[in-house]
């Protein structure tokens, strides 16, 4: 199969949907001639013109609000927020408007809007351009939150997001933009709320998402040489969350490591741990559930410091070894 980068896969999905459905419009800062801050929309202005690929002022509240109103009026806007940190500037429109419009008006409106935005650290962009803020929105009923980890998923899940009648926060993993992978040709959708088991194993269940999937797979390969078989579950979508897949993997392995880039406290990992502890998987656990998230720190500028605050492959592998050790089981009387 042909390969595309993660960024190209996103562009392909958006372009296919714009060709298929003239209600799809694309709004954002510098998405036209400039091609988007990460080059995702390069060439789209030429194909679709300035009416449908629309550069906006630097006004995140107005951009998202415009998307909400356009969606309530029958269009399917895709809005790009240049860095996911900037969603904080548009918070009212996302949390109080987009996520509430259907419910508070008794189902009279739907808000089929996608907010595409690059998330995560690793580029030396420091505190205000590197955060992983998904937990804020997972905690907001009325909006879906997805975090594709491969080019194929990015394409299929963006297509799903555009066709979804609800607001979707589409968190692109900025360090994955140039990563290549096999991507099917033509239109296809990947349903939300369905995790993907990226690696089968029986010793430790690794529940993760976004760019940490890659690191977890590398760590799993490293410990496999030592006889530890880790299973890596890529959640893909965080709201809705695939509870069944989480519980099934936890039951199968009896030991669980949850990995995400976002800071640990208040993170999605706590929710995943609670789902396991709250389910029949609890009785299969051979060791306490372990969370490995980012440190509770803003993302620093210095490369070494930046690397220090998010989970690294070596750290994930160490956590796997620790969990797989015999002594990591419950103390027996």
């Amino acid at each position, binding site marked *: 199969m042909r390969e595309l980068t993660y960024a190209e896969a996103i562009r392909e999905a958006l372009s296919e949907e714009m060709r298929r459905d003239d209600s799809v419009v694309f709004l954002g800062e510098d998405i036209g001639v400039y091609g988007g801050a990460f080059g995702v929309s390069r060439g789209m202005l030429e194909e679709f013109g300035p009416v449908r690929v629309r550069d906006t002022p630097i006004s995140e509240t107005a951009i998202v*609000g415009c998307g909400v*109103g356009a*969606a309530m*009026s029958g*269009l399917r*806007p895709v809005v790009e927020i240049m860095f996911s940190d900037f969603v904080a500037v548009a918070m009212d429109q996302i949390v109080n408007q987009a996520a509430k419009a259907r419910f508070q*008006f008794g*189902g009279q409106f739907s808000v089929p809007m996608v907010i595409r935005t690059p998330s995560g650290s690793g580029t030396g962009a420091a505190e205000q351009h590197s955060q992983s803020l998904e937990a804020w929105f997972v905690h907001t009923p009325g909006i879906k939150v997805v975090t594709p980890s491969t080019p194929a998923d990015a394409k299929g899940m963006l297509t799903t997001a555009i066709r979804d009648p*609800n607001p979707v926060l589409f968190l692109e993993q900025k360090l994955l933009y140039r990563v290549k992978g096999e991507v099917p040709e033509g239109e296809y959708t990947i349903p939300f709320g369905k995790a993907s088991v990226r690696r089968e194993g029986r010793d430790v269940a690794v529940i993760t998402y976004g760019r940490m999937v890659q690191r977890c797979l590398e760590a799993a390969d490293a410990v496999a040489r030592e006889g530890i078989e880790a299973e890596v579950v890529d959640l893909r979508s965080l709201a809705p969350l695939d509870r069944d897949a989480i519980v099934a993997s936890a039951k199968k392995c009896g030991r669980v490591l949850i990995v995400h880039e976002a800071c640990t406290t208040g993170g999605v990992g706590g929710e995943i741990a609670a789902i396991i502890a709250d389910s029949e998987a609890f009785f299969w656990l051979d060791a306490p559930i372990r969370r490995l998230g980012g440190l509770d720190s803003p993302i620093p500028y210095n490369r070494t410091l930046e690397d220090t605050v998010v989970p690294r492959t070596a750290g994930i592998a160490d956590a796997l070894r620790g969990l797989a050790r015999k002594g990591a089981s419950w103390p027996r009387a």
Partner: protein
Amino acid sequence: MGIPAAKLKELFLKMSQTRHFEETAARLFTEGKVHGTAHFCIGEEATGVGVCSALAPEDLIAQTHRGHNQAIGKGMRLDRMMAEFLGKETGYCHGRGGCMHIADSSVGSLGANGIVGGGIPIAVGAAFAQQYRKLDAITVCFFGDGATNEGAFHEALNLASVWKLPILFVCVNNYYAMSTPLNRHMNISDIAVRAQSYGIRGKSLDGNDVISVYEATLEAKEYVRREGPMLLVLNTYRYMGHSKSDPQNYRTKEEVESWKKRDPLVLFRDRLLRDGICSAEELDALDGQALRDVAAAVEYAESSPEPRTDEVLRDVLAE
């Protein structure tokens, strides 16, 4: 005055309905029949009714949460409004939103917003959709004087101006942002000058004179269709507190009384009599009809079922 007599009577009826609706709603509050809050527009009836009565069914409005006049002006049903106020299943939002979030997509209402200024960017989006679809319709966006200090207002006016969207921004200036008077929350006395910064037309007028409001809206609508956005500032006054819990210690009784001398309903009644459009009997009859309509709305609302608790999650997400 070139407005047909039937339209003038419609304006009078809708203003009377708004007044009676709110006075009745306030009484239901006192009787302990309402869970929640309400923001009354008594004294401001001419603004929403005057503007919305000048619109076509396909024109859209984004309302404020002091907007029963806007809702009635655009043609929303009193019974379903009252049912929403009482939190009933038959209410416009099935008891989910209350009167702070009343909406009726079937008459072109995008809903009332609980966040000051929150509806302004949304209205811009609706106007964007109208422009994109090359529709003849416009969007009218209501907000108060307080909202013009929100960033959303400035971002939205700028965006609408850059894209020349068919949107009429209507600021209902009642001179108070909750308790803070205009002269302490902005350093200008005419809000319409804010339009200049965004390269759009701005105009202020007496918001208690429903005929001026109606005619200005008709004119503005044509302008907006042709030229793009415009800001209309309607200067008016609210007699009641900000919400039900307001002690009103920030203004004098004399100030309120002085505004009541320019009550929009009294002004309009006098004008209709003076111009020989209606007789006193006709106006009394319209007022009586408004009272009966509101009484019927209360009966409908009170006899309507409560929402079912097992359906509470119904509209969190669309299927």
